[in-house]
């Protein structure tokens, strides 16, 4: 067997921690896959996926303080919210739009995360608005003298929105403890990155906000972990925000309403699947003898069981009463 460098120990991650990371990535993937099946079976109207981005999401989330930090994720961030305490059941409740869905009580589409308890700011659909909220939360946390950072994510297409620019600049000027992570998955629906941005890397934009910018392999959770950890430390030292771009590939169509064959080839997608961060991480963990065959099987079984339970529970759960739609417009 070839000797592979143990990278996670060098980063201060224990074997248990990386296994937990792997399990979280797998759970995100499997919840997502199940959602597609449910959608194709006509049981839920909509899915939007994390597939291909779990490595970046979980790598980043584990670099944060998951008990204290605040996050403003975007719709693909199953891996992030699972790391922050959202459960498969919570996500399935959201997929089925049931009353018990902690994100919105079935009011929002799946992928619109939010939980005060878990410090996940509530999300909307118009892209990039959350970036400003993250900056606001960072400002408020610093005012209150709290030792935390705020972490926000968005797609590369969304990095063109005015709100990204205004928010990044605001954070730069006030040296706020916030981390901007752009999950570059090469497409904004059908539009490839070269028609979205003229710069080589999204991280090239960092200098315009006086902040550090880095582009990282988004299929490598440890590389993302390292970058986010460093950004977090800099933020806590008062050195301001960072912009981290993680490069990977969107393995599914944009959403269950999309047909990606109209704008990209099956070959291109198959090629990208070879670099899938989930399998790469599994291979790495095996190569450093952390993930044995039995362990892999145990993890898969556990995750499958969670997904199964979550689906059954959510499908059987009740909808909110129709008239409850009138509640919570204002404080009551």
């Amino acid at each position: 067997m070839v000797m592979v460098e143990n990278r996670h120990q060098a980063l201060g991650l224990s074997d248990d921690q990386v296994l937990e990371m792997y399990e979280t990535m797998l759970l995100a993937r499997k919840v997502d896959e199940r959602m597609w099946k449910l959608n194709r079976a006509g049981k839920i109207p909509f899915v939007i996926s994390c597939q291909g981005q779990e490595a970046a999401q979980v790598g980043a989330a584990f670099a944060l303080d998951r008990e204290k930090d605040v996050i403003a994720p975007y719709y693909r961030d199953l891996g992030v919210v699972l790391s922050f305490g959202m459960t498969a059941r919570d996500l399935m409740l959201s997929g089925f739009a049931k009353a018990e869905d902690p994100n919105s009580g079935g009011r929002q589409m799946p992928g619109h995360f939010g939980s005060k308890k878990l410090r996940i700011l509530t999300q909307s659909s118009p892209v990039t608005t959350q970036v400003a909220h993250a900056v606001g939360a960072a400002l408020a946390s610093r005012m209150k003298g709290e030792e935390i950072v705020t972490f926000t994510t968005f797609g590369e297409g969304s990095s063109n929105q005015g709100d990204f620019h205004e928010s990044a600049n605001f954070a730069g000027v006030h040296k706020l403890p916030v981390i901007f992570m752009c999950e570059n998955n090469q497409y904004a629906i059908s539009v490839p990155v070269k028609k979205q941005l003229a710069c080589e890397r999204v991280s090239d934009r960092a200098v315009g906000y006086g902040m550090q910018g880095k582009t990282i392999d988004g299929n490598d959770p440890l590389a993302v972990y390292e970058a986010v950890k460093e950004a977090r430390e800099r933020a806590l030292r008062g050195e301001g925000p960072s912009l981290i771009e993680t490069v990977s590939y969107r393995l599914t169509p944009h959403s269950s309403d999309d047909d990606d064959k109209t704008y990209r080839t099956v070959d291109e997608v198959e090629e990208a699947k070879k670099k899938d961060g989930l399998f790469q991480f599994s291979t790495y963990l095996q190569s450093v003898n952390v993930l044995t065959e039995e362990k892999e099987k145990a993890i898969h079984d556990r995750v499958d069981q969670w997904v199964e339970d979550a689906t059954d529970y959510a499908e059987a759960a009740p909808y909110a009463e129709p008239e409850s739609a009138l509640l919570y417009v204002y404080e009551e």
Partner: protein
Amino acid sequence: MPVRSYIEAVTLALREEMQRDENVFILGEDVGVRGGVFRATAGLFEQFGEARVMDTPLTESAIAGVGIGAAMYGTRPVAEMQFADFILPAVNQIISEAAKTRYRSNNDWTVPLTIRAPYGGGVHGALYHSQSIESIFANQPGLKIVMPSTPYDVKGLLKAAVRSNDPVLFLEHKRAYRLIKGEVPDEDYTLPIGKADVKREGEDITVITYGLAVHFALQAAEKLAEEGISAHILDLRTVYPLDQEAIIEAASKTGKVLLITEDNKEGSIIGEVSAIIAEHCLFDLDAPIRRLAGPDIPAMPYAPPMEKFFMINPEKVENAMRDLAEF
């Protein structure tokens, strides 16, 4: 006459106008190879090429703003907002710029720009893919807002919008896209922006509405006819500026008026319709001016029971019409 769906009428109007005038071009998110997420621009990229069917970066303010600049320069851009809900980042460009360009330049510069956007609910779109957004813009002199109900009107009004020398917000009901079909001639024709249209003549009650609700009202009118109630139905078609004359005439005709919108009730454009009636023909009325609208909650939730609770539908319309007739 060929029968076409509402969305086919959109595509047809765009194709004809692009053939007719090389200054017409399309810009928006995913309008190119993908043909639009609703496929309203399907086939146009293939026919007219990338330069005239342009995928833009994901930036609504720039889509509107670049459209305005290109329009000032003498082209006729047709910008697509992927969902009406996502027009909001472009509000400044639309209200401060497009609407005011002719006025502020004392008639020197003009903005012949059409902005298309799919609006409306009933498609499991939840809070941010279901909204009615017309009232946000329905107080902006210089702008026109067209909201057609039938494929025939879509074609004629969209062509008129593209040819208009003033900016037009052209709002298409996304649930109507494939649900509503109707005769649409192959010939070139336009319909006048700013004119409402009597969709049904009647004597007992007047219904004034627009968009998908026109069809609900027409269906209900058929049923009520069997009960001996005759409904007059006015389709506003242009919701800003309103066709005051047509509104006054329709209201006066029966003296009993029901206004319908899918939007939240308070602050919707039917409030203005009511005010026009109360100002001009109050003494012709035999009943209070009724309004049927969505509840005042932030658009409709995702869960089907709550979505249904929110949406106007044929039953709600029928009941409201019967109720008024019985007043």
